[in-house]
């Protein structure tokens, strides 16, 4: 079963717009929630991460919002740029679990 559900599967946004990707998880033992960015032909790379004791984390144009009671978290990309076009994965990690559980990915296309 898929422990981390991600939506939408794909997203098209105009340059300057906001991209929003949502994830939901089941396992309350997860205690770290990273987002990875993957460009075509490359490996995923860590973009930003949050712990459940924080409701929001911002790094540049990227913001994670976290709702512990709803077991949901989301990535907002503000002022989206064509260079942001990539596949984004949410993930969840358990303390000392040594195992990242990934969502299904969202392909984001930013049109100029």
């Amino acid at each position, binding site marked *: 079963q898929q422990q981390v559900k991600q939506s939408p599967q794909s997203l098209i946004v105009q340059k300057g717009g906001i991209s929003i990707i949502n994830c939901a998880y089941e396992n309350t033992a997860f205690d770290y929630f*990273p987002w990875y960015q993957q460009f075509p032909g490359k490996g995923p790379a860590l973009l930003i991460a949050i712990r459940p004791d924080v409701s929001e984390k911002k790094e540049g144009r990227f913001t994670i919002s976290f709702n512990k009671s709803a077991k949901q978290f989301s990535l907002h990309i503000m002022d989206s740029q064509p260079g942001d076009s990539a596949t984004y994965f949410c993930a969840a990690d358990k303390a000392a679990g*040594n195992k990242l559980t990934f969502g299904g990915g969202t392909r984001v296309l930013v049109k100029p």
Partner: protein
Amino acid sequence: DTAVSQTPKYLVTQMGNDKSIKCEQNLGHDTMYWYKQDSKKFLKIMFSYNNKELIINETVPNRFSPKSPDKAHLNLHINSLELGDSAVYFCASSQVSSSYEQYFGPGTRLTVT
């Protein structure tokens, strides 16, 4: 300097063959991983090694055998290749204390014909 490197980048082979993919990391990490990414981009962990010791072995056919000669290397050997093995295989590494922060290699695209 490449942090996590994999060879080869592309691998095309016929069903029934045996092949290996090599991975090396120069980040000084103590944990290494193998992931499989299918055609729908879904990323699934296959194996995880910490200090050369296998700690995660997901439901993977035993035709797949990882081997870690030292902390900096994790190789993947695949016997009797099948069409369904076609995918992109990623190696990654991290410190065990921060396993959420993994560094991925460039991937090996395996095509079985």
